[in-house]
């Protein structure tokens, strides 16, 4: 999870791979992480955890699962950072909010 937070800004541009392609001349267009030009680190394609692991039910009771998609302060981590697909993000959000209501997850971390 942690390593996926670093490449946030470039990733948003990567899906529309036509953009940076002509500009940089396509030095390594073969990379699946997106031809980002002079990027220092390799970015692997983010995939939806729920689609790949075939997790159908996102229950508000499954704190372990939900915790992975909540930031330190208790915020829901956006899709562009985690790679979760739209459908599952919606269900995930609902589950997290339900879990917050029954005090399984914090609304905000206490300090």
């Amino acid at each position, binding site marked *: 999870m942690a390593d996926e937070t670093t490449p946030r800004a470039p990733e948003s541009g990567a899906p529309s791979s036509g953009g940076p392609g002509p500009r940089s001349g396509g030095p390594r267009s073969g990379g699946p992480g997106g031809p980002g030009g002079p990027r220092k680190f390799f970015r692997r394609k983010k995939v939806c955890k729920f689609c790949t692991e075939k997790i*159908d*039910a996102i229950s*508000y*009771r499954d704190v372990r699962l939900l915790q992975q998609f909540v930031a330190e302060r208790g915020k829901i981590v956006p899709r562009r950072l985690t790679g979760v697909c739209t459908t599952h993000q919606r269900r995930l959000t609902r589950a997290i909010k*339900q879990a*917050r*209501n*029954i*005090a*399984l*997850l*914090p*609304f905000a971390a*206490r300090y």
Partner: protein
Amino acid sequence: MDRFYEVMFIVRPDIEDADLDKLIAGFEQTIVNGGGTLRSTEKLGRRKLAYLVRKFNDGNYVLLTIDADGKLVAELERRLRVSEPVIKFITVRMDEEQKRLDKIKAIRATRKKLSAQAPAPAPAAVEAAEPAAAVEATPASA
């Protein structure tokens, strides 16, 4: 009455075990009297709360799975609200989600049948190859 709900509530931590059982039995009675059916009762035990609730840091979680209609759920929620030891509760309607899951499961089952036929010969072939390799290896060592 085809809906089913999950009702989760938190009971204050300083309650006796016997009192907790009595409290749960009371709610179960309400459900049965109201024409609903109880699927399961689960005591999830004592757990730390994510934030302070009525100045309590932890609580006893209880989960009821019930078949009920709206009126009964409203009545149950009213009772949960007025009962003093219950500090928090949530009701979640589960039947539509369950329907969706069953559908996915059915789709997946039909797909599996197709895929099961294809890879079936492959493991057999591997098994057949392995004894052959073993047989070949033994004379070499002997």
